[in-house]
């Protein structure tokens, strides 16, 4: 490891190196990601004709074949659409960021994380192997975490990052479980193979758990109620991140997952109703909250929630209209929402604020920004001839054909679209064109790298509104086919579909939407009052975390008490329960106990040890206890003497003597024993007695059974002839089992070293 590397990677050093070029934006850190994203975009673009023709491309690299995990990618309509959005918007956002963060001392890290995210996200939508998909899924979670916390010195950022991580983390784990179950049911992790098996999942006994797990993953990632709350908080990230991750791409990973598994999991009531209810609830709830916001970014965040709800709601169905609508809406939303986020970022960057109450009439100062905002806003508002209009029409059409409750679904769409209309005005129109307040002075138009993104995105919404057939042919139709698993279901994208119910609903949308826009301020005040009284999921999450944390603390206080006595008690009780409990669960008989061979010396020894033990226990005097221990030691040595173990007896005596010596010497430095409070000792006595009885019973069972002496027979036979020693015990120690002895003397040596160190340690800083 060379010092220069450390230095290079050291932030301060790096910052010094990079600050010289901090005024320009054409730095490696700024440009390389753009090049990568652009190249990937172009590469995907060239696959468009093939996919348009209904082909799919598949690449397989074997990764962990023994676990059935491959890195396999498939490019069909769905993944290509997502891939183009990811790389295309990615390239624009990265270009934008190159300027937005130019000179920021952590720009390089930012670029690295953002690029990593893009690649991970690309992996999610291209992966054919479910586990590979999971791997990329989790990578998006991690990179998202790091990006949300990019302003890491702010506690709010850190909290938001953690919240996002944990909520999507729950989903990630659910996805892992789902993947395993699906793999078990289908026998493969390859999604294309699973799709090819007709209804293999739906008919499986594990369908319900699989579905729940998959939806948990999708709902958390795509912020469906009740997991929505992390998304607005994620706006703590720099604006390019919000634009890219939290509106255009990552949050749609959940949508992608539902779309991807649509043909394998949908078609059941539970799929239909779960998605419908979650989608509708999210959509309506988010649109109401959106109106409450004064921060433009927050308002956009809630409309993103709304869009995600709408997409979920549409994916609940398997009708052609609904799915076509979903695909179209997904794309258009990505265009206009990314554009608007970037616009808000420009406003923030140039004016220093994102508050609707401060931003008015900037159209003159920032004409290009205003134009992009207006175009994107019109698309969002669903006004013809923008692509947003078509998406809305299809959505209404789709909602009218749902299997659940057309009135309810259409109603929800109506409410949401109207609010979307209003917010499009608030974000895309008012800051630039409203005369309701005085415009800020000295505001300049942003530089082109920042403008390029919103302008292109806004123009795309317009372009495809005018020429929907292009989009339909190359992307919408293949995507719908990929989702539904059958071709030809896609409905036509058209501006004029005749005077029908969807059109009526559209018109109604504009009227209501305008009213909301006009009365936005009083409405907001009312909603804020309402909101203060309503339960907040965000606060609920905090409470949940705090609850878990205080539960954890309580548990730790109860278990890890810091009291040695408690630890020992639990250890002994555990032992007692394990042994005595097993003796109850697995009873066995004690063979008859032979008491005839007990002689007078045996009783002598018994008495000696017993009395020594009792003396040690009852005395309040240290030295009496030590003497009592000595008695026990002598008694035990006597057992070894009487039962033919002279070596052991000698060793026991020597060791016991040393123990007494050490105790007596140590006692010179230690305080008197003192009495133990007897109140709690009865329980100790019960545990102790239980242990004693248990051990005795086990020993009786062992010793009344037969004994296999084959090892000893060998030692007796070989000791002298082969090992040249008459003391069999010693021969075992130094020859047959010399390794034991070697370890044993190592213990003795290390004990000495340890003790020496213990006593010679500096009576350090913290000692009295």
């Amino acid at each position: 490891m060379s010092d220069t590397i450390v230095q290079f990677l050291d932030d301060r050093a790096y910052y010094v190196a990079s600050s010289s070029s901090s005024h320009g934006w054409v730095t490696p850190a700024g440009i390389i990601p753009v090049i990568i994203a652009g190249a990937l975009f172009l590469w995907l673009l060239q696959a468009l004709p093939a996919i348009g023709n209904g082909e799919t491309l598949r690449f397989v690299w074997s990764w962990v074949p023994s676990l059935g995990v491959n890195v396999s990618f498939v490019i069909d309509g769905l993944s290509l659409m997502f891939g183009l959005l990811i790389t295309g918007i990615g390239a624009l956002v990265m270009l934008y960021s190159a300027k937005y963060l130019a000179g920021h001392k952590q720009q390089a890290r930012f670029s690295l994380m953002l690029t990593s995210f893009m690649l991970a996200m690309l992996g999610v939508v291209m992966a054919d192997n479910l586990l590979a998909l999971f791997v990329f899924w989790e990578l998006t979670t991690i990179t998202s975490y790091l990006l949300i916390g990019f302003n890491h010195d702010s506690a709010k950022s850190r909290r938001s990052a953690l919240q996002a991580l944990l909520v999507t983390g729950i989903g990630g784990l659910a996805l892992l479980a789902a993947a395993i179950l699906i793999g078990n049911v289908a026998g493969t992790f390859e999604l294309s193979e699973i799709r090819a098996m007709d209804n293999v999942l739906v008919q499986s006994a594990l369908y319900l758990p699989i579905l729940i797990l998959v939806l948990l993953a999708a709902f958390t990632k795509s912020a469906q109620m009740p997991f929505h709350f992390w998304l607005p908080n994620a706006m703590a990230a720099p604006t390019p991140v919000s634009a890219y991750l939290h509106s255009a791409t990552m949050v749609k990973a959940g949508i992608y997952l539902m779309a991807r598994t649509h043909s394998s999991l949908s078609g059941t009531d539970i799929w239909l109703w779960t998605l419908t209810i979650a989608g509708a609830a999210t959509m309506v709830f988010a649109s109401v909250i959106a109106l409450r916001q004064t921060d433009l970014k927050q308002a956009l965040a809630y409309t993103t929630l709304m869009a995600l709800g709408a997409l979920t709601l549409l994916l609940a169905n398997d009708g052609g209209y609904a799915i076509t609508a979903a695909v179209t809406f997904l794309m258009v939303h990505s265009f206009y929402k990314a554009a608007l986020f970037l616009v808000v970022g420009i406003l923030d960057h140039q004016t220093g604020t994102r508050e609707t109450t401060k931003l008015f009439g900037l159209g003159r100062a920032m004409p290009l920004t205003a134009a992009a905002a207006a175009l994107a806003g019109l698309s969002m508002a669903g006004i013809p001839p923008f692509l947003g209009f078509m998406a809305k029409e299809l959505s209404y059409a789709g909602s009218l054909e749902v299997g659940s409750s057309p009135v309810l679904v259409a109603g929800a769409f109506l409410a949401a679209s109207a609010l979307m209309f209003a917010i499009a005005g608030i974000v895309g129109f008012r800051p630039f064109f409203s005369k309701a307040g005085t415009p800020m002075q000295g505001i300049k138009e942003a530089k082109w790298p920042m403008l390029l993104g919103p302008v292109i995105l806004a123009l795309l919404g317009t372009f495809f509104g005018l020429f929907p057939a292009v989009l339909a042919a190359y992307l919408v139709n293949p995507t719908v086919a990929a989702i539904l698993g059958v071709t030809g279901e896609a409905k036509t994208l058209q501006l004029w579909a005749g005077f029908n119910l969807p059109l009526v609903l559209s018109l109604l949308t504009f009227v209501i939407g305008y009213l909301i826009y006009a009365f936005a301020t009083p409405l907001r005040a009312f909603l804020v009052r309402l909101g203060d009284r309503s339960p907040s999921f965000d606060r609920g999450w905090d409470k949940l975390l705090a609850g878990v944390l205080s539960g954890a603390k309580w548990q730790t206080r109860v278990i890890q008490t810091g009291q040695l006595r408690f630890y020992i008690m639990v250890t002994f009780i555990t032992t007692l329960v394990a042994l005595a409990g097993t003796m109850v669960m697995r009873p066995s008989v004690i063979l008859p106990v032979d008491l005839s061979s007990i002689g007078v010396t045996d009783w002598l020894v018994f008495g000696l040890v017993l009395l020594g033990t009792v003396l040690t226990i009852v005395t309040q005097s240290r030295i009496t206890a030590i003497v009592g221990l000595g008695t026990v030691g002598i008694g035990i040595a006597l057992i070894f003497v009487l039962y033919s173990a002279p070596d052991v007896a000698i060793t026991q005596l020597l060791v016991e003597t040393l123990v007494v010596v050490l105790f007596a010497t140590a006692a010179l430095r230690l305080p008197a024993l003192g009495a133990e409070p007897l109140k709690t000792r009865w329980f100790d006595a019960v545990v102790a007695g239980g242990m004693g009885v248990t051990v005795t019973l086990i020993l009786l069972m062992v010793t009344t059974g037969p004994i296999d002496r084959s090892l000893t027979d060998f030692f007796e036979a070989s000791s002298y002839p082969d090992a040249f020693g008459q003391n069999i015990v010693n021969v075992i120690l130094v020859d047959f089992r010399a390794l034991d002895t070697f370890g044993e003397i190592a213990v003795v040596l290390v004990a000495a070293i340890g003790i020496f160190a213990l006593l010679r340690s500096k009576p350090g800083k913290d000692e009295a």
Partner: protein
Amino acid sequence: MEPLLSILIGILVAGSVYLMLARNLMRFLFGLILLSNAANLSIFVSGRMTPGAPPLVPDGMDVPPEVVANALPQALVLTAIVIGFGLFAFALILAVRAYRSLGTLNTDEMRVAEPKEQG
């Protein structure tokens, strides 16, 4: 003798557990000694007991002429005694050192590594 010794071991275990559950670290150490002894005796008794016949090969013979005590458990016990001594010595000196450092032998009051106010 095995049954009597089994009972004796039980008594040693009970006594040692009772001592180890005391607050005073010295009593814990007393209990430790007793428990070590009980464990050694368990091994010894598990190998069965033979009086008056140490496992020695008499001079001029290749193997013991008659039944001698089971040598293997004796070797194991011997090893265990010495190891136990090493461990005990360390524990005892640790107690001395703990008293010097912490000013108490009452384990309830030994709360430096895991202070009371912690979570």
